């Protein structure tokens, strides 16, 4: 930083957003993307802007940059260094962007030019904004690459964006944003597309930058754990309004708005002192839509557990005096219990030991499309990719096996092999003791009915051109042998059971929200009472309040129908919440598996350890553990030797790790297996 930069303790606001309102005029009507947002960003401070999708967080960020497309009306004030940015000249704004205000977007791939090397991209930015010579620019670029923690900063400029991993790309984007030493850095979901271990390193970088760079950071995220990790202050948005704004600790420890309290109780947390995982509470209903005109009422009242008559007769204003500002008439009534009493995760114990799903030495290889070395003859040009290697697991009745791992770990492939969408290469899969054919189409109708799957993206798993009843009634007709009328009635009952209005039955998917679509997908999976359901990232695309609803729905179905689940997620918190057993996968290999409590406690596989310490907890006082992984999950090809985790392991011991396959060791219990060369008692330390 330059030496004349302002003192850190300076508390005059750098950015002051006052009663910001943004309306888009579209052919389909006015959209109030932001109704009333107010918050402040000071130098050296990270302000977290949090809320569910459709709450206007990104629009706030974009309106500060002046990037608002279409016919738009902006009300209120955006004071930057005392100057109002609303209605400012485009040329004046242009000089602020990049120089004084910089932005980091969600997807680094779209922010970087794929045809240009990293170095020239950086030099271009420096040339535009700074008056420096060629040598100085080069030196400055290297310095910037170094400051964001890129390895070998002097040579990285010679590489193209596609040669870098997602985490490195995001570092480059942050370096580009820092290039002109901005006063204000706006980050819009900068870690959302990244794996959890990479996310942790980027968050470390942001926390570190906050101390080094004398800038204010506005950090937009939907993830409360991430916000708790980086933010000093938090602004919560609901239905395009700021509903609460306070220091990060006040927000997380004593929320005063019922919505904030609700959001926090929707996030899965570790078991408490008594070893009981508290059941997630859920916020009923859905977000007040931006296209609706607000009356004189509290927009949260329809979903609020403590709503009174006054809430529907008057619109609460955000308090202006206190340091903890809140838009609610009764903030003193907000306690942790307003969203329901603390209950255990589920009120039954699975004691039936009959095995529902069993996989023995399951292997999946992906063959290269390039074919043979000499067109038709010779070895294959590239050896097959080891997608799943020797996976052994079983799921007993009404229990849940959670599979966790980063992208590329083979967890989805395992599910797809089980369900028969991906060909297994060897090994056996059994359902209720009967061998399953490799391909879904070769299985019997009963087997297909007993083993169902829920996909990640509800928008993609429902046919956009067909009414939602289609998927449900077809399942019922094919599996349950029902006639049209019976299937129709049953489909309505199923929709009701997953908490949807049965009159939605004739709607097409685009007329439903993401959460509602996923409920339809669940209803169709629940049709004809399956014995087991594979849920592949089934809640990953959903907002946290909807995620809680869906998770509880799954647990209820498990209780009522004794269903077994295989629950796949990259989110350790979610897996921890639903699972009885956990399997940790890395690059196609099972690193660790066993009962959930054993896997989550010491001794752990180094990878599990890294995953646990990377997972952001929604608690600002949680001490971030320091185990960080560099790089990304590699693609393992055939004829590979040594430990699958060796090149990223922080506890690598000696050559054995590179040369010998790690043995399976028993951990806390005979069912708890850790694949590592380090002896178990050493792993425990």
């Amino acid at each position, binding site marked *: 930083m330059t030496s004349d930069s302002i003192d850190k303790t300076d508390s005059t606001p750098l950015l002051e957003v006052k009663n910001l309102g943004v309306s888009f005029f579209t052919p389909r009507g006015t959209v109030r993307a932001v109704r009333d947002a107010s918050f402040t960003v000071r130098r050296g401070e990270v302000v977290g802007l949090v809320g569910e999708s459709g709450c206007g967080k990104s629009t706030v960020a974009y309106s500060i940059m002046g990037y608002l497309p279409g016919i738009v009306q902006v009300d209120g004030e955006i004071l930057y260094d005392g100057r109002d940015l609303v209605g400012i000249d485009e040329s004046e704004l242009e000089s602020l962007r990049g120089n004084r205000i910089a932005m980091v977007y969600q997807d680094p791939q779209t922010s970087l030019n794929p045809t240009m090397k990293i170095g020239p991209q950086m030099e271009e930015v420096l040339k535009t904004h700074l008056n420096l010579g060629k040598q100085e620019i080069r030196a400055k670029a290297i310095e910037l690459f170094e400051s964001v923690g890129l390895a070998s900063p002097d040579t990285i400029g010679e590489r193209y964006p596609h040669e870098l991993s997602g985490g490195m790309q995001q570092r480059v984007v942050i370096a580009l944003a820092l290039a002109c030493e901005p006063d204000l850095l706006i980050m819009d979901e900068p870690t959302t597309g990244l794996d959890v271990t990479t996310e942790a390193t980027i968050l470390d970088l942001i926390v570190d930058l906050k101390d080094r760079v004398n800038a204010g950071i506005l950090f937009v995220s939907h993830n409360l754990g991430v916000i708790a990790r980086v933010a000093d202050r938090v602004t919560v948005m609901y239905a395009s309004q700021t509903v609460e704004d306070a220091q990060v600790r006040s927000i997380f420890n004593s929320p005063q708005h019922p919505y904030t309290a609700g959001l926090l109780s929707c996030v899965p947390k570790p078991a408490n002192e008594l070893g009981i995982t508290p059941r997630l509470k859920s916020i009923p209903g859905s977000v007040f839509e931006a296209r609706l005109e607000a009356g004189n009422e509290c927009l949260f009242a329809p979903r609020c557990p403590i709503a009174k008559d006054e809430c529907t007769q008057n619109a609460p204003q955000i308090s202006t005096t206190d340091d903890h500002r809140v838009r609610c008439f009764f903030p003193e009534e907000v306690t942790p219990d307003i969203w329901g009493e603390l209950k255990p995760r589920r009120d039954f114990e699975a004691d039936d030991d009959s095995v529902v799903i069993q996989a023995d030495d399951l292997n999946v290889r992906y063959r290269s499309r390039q074919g043979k070395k000499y067109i038709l003859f010779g070895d294959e040009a590239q050896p097959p990719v080891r997608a799943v290697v020797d996976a052994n697991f079983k799921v007993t009745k009404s229990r849940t096996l959670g599979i966790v791992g980063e992208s590329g770990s083979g967890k989805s492939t395992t599910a797809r092999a089980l369900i028969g*969408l991906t060909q297994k290469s060897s090994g056996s899969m059994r359902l209720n003791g009967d061998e399953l054919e490799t391909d879904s189409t070769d299985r019997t*109708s009963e087997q297909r009915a007993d083993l169902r799957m829920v996909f*990640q993206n509800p928008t*993609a*798993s429902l*046919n956009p*051109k067909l009414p939602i009843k289609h998927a449900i009634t077809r399942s019922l*007709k094919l599996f349950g042998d029902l006639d049209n009328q019976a299937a129709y009635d049953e489909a309505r009952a199923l929709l009701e059971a997953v908490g949807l209005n049965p009159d939605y039955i004739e709607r097409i998917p685009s007329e439903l929200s993401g959460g509602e679509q996923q409920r339809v997908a669940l209803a169709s999976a629940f049709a004809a009472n399956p014995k087991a359901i594979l849920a592949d990232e089934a809640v990953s695309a959903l907002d946290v309040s909807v995620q809680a609803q869906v998770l509880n729905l799954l647990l209820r179905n498990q209780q009522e129908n004794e269903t077994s689940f295989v629950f796949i997620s990259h989110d350790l918190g979610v897996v921890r919440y639903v699972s009885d057993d956990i399997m940790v996968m890395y690059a196609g290999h099972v690193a660790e598996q066993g009962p959930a409590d054993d896997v989550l406690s010491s001794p752990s596989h180094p990878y599990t350890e890294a995953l646990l310490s990377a997972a952001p907890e929604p608690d600002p006082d949680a001490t971030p553990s320091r185990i960080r992984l560099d790089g990304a999950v590699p693609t393992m090809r055939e004829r590979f030797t040594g430990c699958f985790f060796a090149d990223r392991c922080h506890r690598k011991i000696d050559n054995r790790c590179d040369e010998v396959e790690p043995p399976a060791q028993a951990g806390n219990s005979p069912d708890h297996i850790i694949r590592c060369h380090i002896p178990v008692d050493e792993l425990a330390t």
Partner: protein
Amino acid sequence: MIEKASVTPPLFVRIKDIFKPFTNAFKTPAGRIGLPLVILHVLLAVFGSYLAPYSPTDFSDATYVRPFTDATEGSIPHILGTDQFGRDVFSRLLSGARSIILISAIGSILGVALGTAIGMSSGYLGGKSDEIIMRIADGLMSFPSLLLALLVLSVSDSLVWLDGVSSVFATGKESLLVIGTMAIVHAPRVARVLRSATLTIKTQEYVDSARLRGESAYYIIFKEILPNALPVLAVEGSVRFSYAILLASSLGFLGLGVEPPSPDWGAMISDSRSILTRAPWVPLAPAAAVASLVVGVNLLTEGIRDAQKLPTELPE
């Protein structure tokens, strides 16, 4: 195992969905010009021969009558004049619309239907059969369509069995051959496009879901994939129709596929090209008719394509 027969056969594509691309296209500038032009031509094809003021084939003494002038007192004016044999150009134009539009429409519909079925099945099933089908399609596509049509028509006399077929449809053998050629020429091109659309759509999870329910390949292709490929199909169908018109009029111009003296736009241009300087209206009228039809169809295609980029529900 539950019998599949207990499942009622589905109605694959709703009629409403077929018209949707066209009604949406009308909301775009290109479609607003194209759709009325196409409808006008279709109306001509249906009612043209009844509206014709003169017989399209009878010769008269009033040769080379200029457009908009009266040949003889008290008679109906020759709006577009007469040709070298005294035939009313306007009447011939009206009467000729039906054959060209009908032949092109049937030819392209057959081609699109055949291509859709082949392309979607090939794309969905994949593997070796897909490879073989696509190489055959490549082979067919490398053959110039006009040459193929000429080849087929040149052997038409030896195809005796066709006489029976043509008498059933009460039409000339040549017309059937032209339609058949169009279907064969267009099918591989349509198949290619629909195959690639299918390849994209089949990776969607709702297709996986259907497979996991145990739906048949036939059901998945036509019930799950086809409705999502309709926008592509509408564009492709319109493009094929405009090519079919050009092929039909080219063949007419070469004197193939029509039985003289019945009016045919291509043949009309060919017959009168020698009198272009003396009576330019005679060849220009059918040329303009072909051109406006092809332009109309192309604009409609453009409109359909544009409408797909717009939000699905456009404001009225």
